[in-house]
């Protein structure tokens, strides 16, 4: 196993975890991008040593790097790409609703923790509700 790659995995993981525990959704997204890199590199490390590209005919089979983790990694990259983009969309919506991208604490949890009656919860406005009923896809 290559210590250099392992270093990259560990470093990316650490920074990723640090970022996802932030309150700003932008930073969380950054964190997941980094974690995504870390997992992909982790898969490669797990698959064995570096080698030539696994394209038949261009190199000896014995010299090739293991193609299976690459395939798995590719799938993982694409999936984490999709989810990162989705998080972005959530952040954009949050920004639209509150003006920033901070992750807020759950209101009902706080209400229960403080023992307040249910009336103190802010009701969603009718406008917001109609808006969400009107939603859909183009």
């Amino acid at each position, binding site marked *: 196993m290559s210590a250099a790659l392992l270093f990259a995995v560990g470093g990316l993981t*650490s920074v990723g975890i640090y970022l996802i525990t932030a309150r700003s959704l932008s930073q969380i997204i950054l964190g997941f991008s980094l974690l995504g890199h870390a997992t992909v590199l982790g898969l490669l490390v797990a698959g064995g040593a570096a080698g030539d590209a696994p394209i038949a005919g261009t190199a000896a089979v014995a010299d090739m790097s293991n193609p*299976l983790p690459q395939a798995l990694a590719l799938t993982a990259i694409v999936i984490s790409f999709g989810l990162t983009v989705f998080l972005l969309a959530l952040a954009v919506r949050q920004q639209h609703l509150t003006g920033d991208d901070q992750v807020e604490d759950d209101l009902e949890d706080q209400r229960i*923790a403080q023992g307040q009656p249910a009336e103190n919860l802010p009701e969603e406005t009718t406008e917001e509700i109609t808006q969400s009923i009107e939603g859909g896809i183009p």
Partner: protein
Amino acid sequence: MLWLLFGAHLVGIAAAVLAGRRSMQAGLCAAALAPAATAIWAATRLVEGGDVVSAELVWVDGLDVAISFRADAVALLMTLLVSGVGALVMGYACGYFSSDAKGGSRFGATMLGFSASMLGLVWADSIWTLFIFWEMTSVTSFLLVGHKHTDAAVRLAARRALVITATGGLVLLAGLILLAQNTGSPNLTKLAPISGTEAAVAAALVLIGAATKSAQVPFHVWLPGAMAAPTPVSAYLHSAAMVKAGILLIAVVGPAFGDVAAWKWLGICFGFASVIWGGVGALRHRDAKLILAWGTVSQLGLMFTLFSAGAPKAIFAGVALLFSHALFKAALFLVVGEVDVRTGTRDITQLGGLARSMPLAFVVALLAGASMVGLPPLLGFTAKEAAIEAVLKLSGGTQAVVGVAIIGGSVLTVAYTIRLLYGIFGPGPATSVAPQGYVRRRSWLMAAPAVTLSLAGVVGYAVIGGVNEIVVPAATELNAKAGVYELIAWPGVKTAFVISVLIVITGAVVGVLWIARGSNRIPLSLGADATDGIVDGVISKSPRLIAWIQHGSLPVYLAVMGTVAVLAAAALASDFAGGHLIWWDHPLQAMLAAAVVIAALAAAFVGSRLGAALALGSVGFGVTGLFLVHGAPDLALTQLLVETVVVVGFVLGLGHLARRFPPVTGSWRSVRIMVAAAGGLAVTAALVAAGTNPTGQPPTPDLVAEAVAEGGGKNVVNVILTDLRALDTLGEVVVLATVAIGILALARVRTRPQAQTQES
């Protein structure tokens, strides 16, 4: 036959629902049919005798759970009580409720549902059948107690009853599992005696379960509260039926615990405490129904004591008491209910002089009360004699404790009965009887069942031989040696009789003195308040506890998760051995790795959004380089394109936000750093450890060969993606499609109202 009768109850429920829509009375009449038929059947069986009828329906064979019924002598006796009293009470309820009472179909159906559950319980031949119906009686009784649920106090009482009986049910479940596993068979007639620690634990659990159901101190607190139910419910559930379930339980499983000392002593303790405390409670209350309820606690305590003592004579006396108690207690409840609806109160300090205005009720109450006290010529007398004789047959400590319980309990019974009857019917300010309109017209409906039940005490005494034919086989069924005894109408002046006379005299003196003292202070309902306090406490304290875990803060959740993962990885990394490590596959790898980590750190610690996005891009390009070095051009290409789109998206979507991230400081930041560092280390170490001694090798040569031969492509990675593992790819693109839909939907919600405002 058993199925037929049981099925009749189920059909009856449907009928009661339908008929109950028209009126309360129709629903109740429909409900009364099945129990009436069952009672008649049981009576004929008892008279005619014959083979024991049984029936079985296997439910879950793997767990030995079956609905197995067996109508032996005990079951028939109980059937007679459950169904007979049930039918009478339902008839009584026709008079009790006004025609326009709400919830007609509900009440009739629930009563019948309870009746059916109770029937299943008394017929049960298997531990599991018994438990199944045991739980069903808990649920149906909850519904019945809460019949007038718009009243908050009623809801509270129903909750209390449910909490105690259902918790008891859970305890019982554990005890029964333990019992079944130790005896090897859930069959109640084949319970082998067990011993040892597990047996003692099982004994305690089963006894606690039984004590909750039979309202034994300290679990009795639900019973007085349950008097919030309509009186027919109290007359049925709390005299003849449900509260007897616990007694029946300890009677039938008793043989298995014969060798367990804990069984006997714990049971006697429950019984003793209940006898005394229940009697004291009955002496102090003013509400006639509550006096009866506390009296029930006391009387059930007597039975509990006798059955726990376990000697043949004691068991015989217990069965006799069980039988007579159901009759006189139900009759008394019915009378109190009638008094209640005709005068509008049940408070004995306000009542008085009803002997003249309600003579029939007075006679009924007198007969039933005399039976309760144990005066001849009534059935109660013979049962009490049997109990005292049973005490005389005991020896040692058991005799002392049981003796005190029975004598003390009987004295108290005499005292509170006198006080009750005196309070309602005795001289004093005559309560005006102003019946509500419907009562007068149908008062015979209320009178007839009460008369029947109280006359049963007289008739039973008269034909004591007939009663013996019911009681003796039942006692034999429970204990083979108990069959030699029988109830004796007139024992002559023997020790037991003398004791009996002394009891009545002492009790009468206590009762008269008590009345004279005019002590009508309501005792503290310690238990009930405590129970509600515990339940409310759990409900009101749980938010505090939960808030500690469920505080709603995402970063903390993530940190917790990270920490847990680190712990798991630490287990993995415990086999850490770095022998297979090399510094790098290629020097370039080391440089790129360093660059990637530095860029990542920059992304984390640079304050501006744009800077972070750029740093993210750099990380992506560095990783692309690492892929190339590793020999993964496909990954590199994809990574490059993905990185571009992500960075563009990041800028596109969040470009409007403040330029800088909000600053982070304080201890939370140190926690984050610690979790993050530990996470990185743990993952790395775990990877190294996992790769130390691989137990299998990747089939790279096979993959390459197959890709070319079968997959028709030279790029092995691509062949894997589109052929070998195309299913993964399929899933992956569906994920992308779904994400796209999600983004579009969110965009739509956002833009729609704006478009509307524009138009307006």
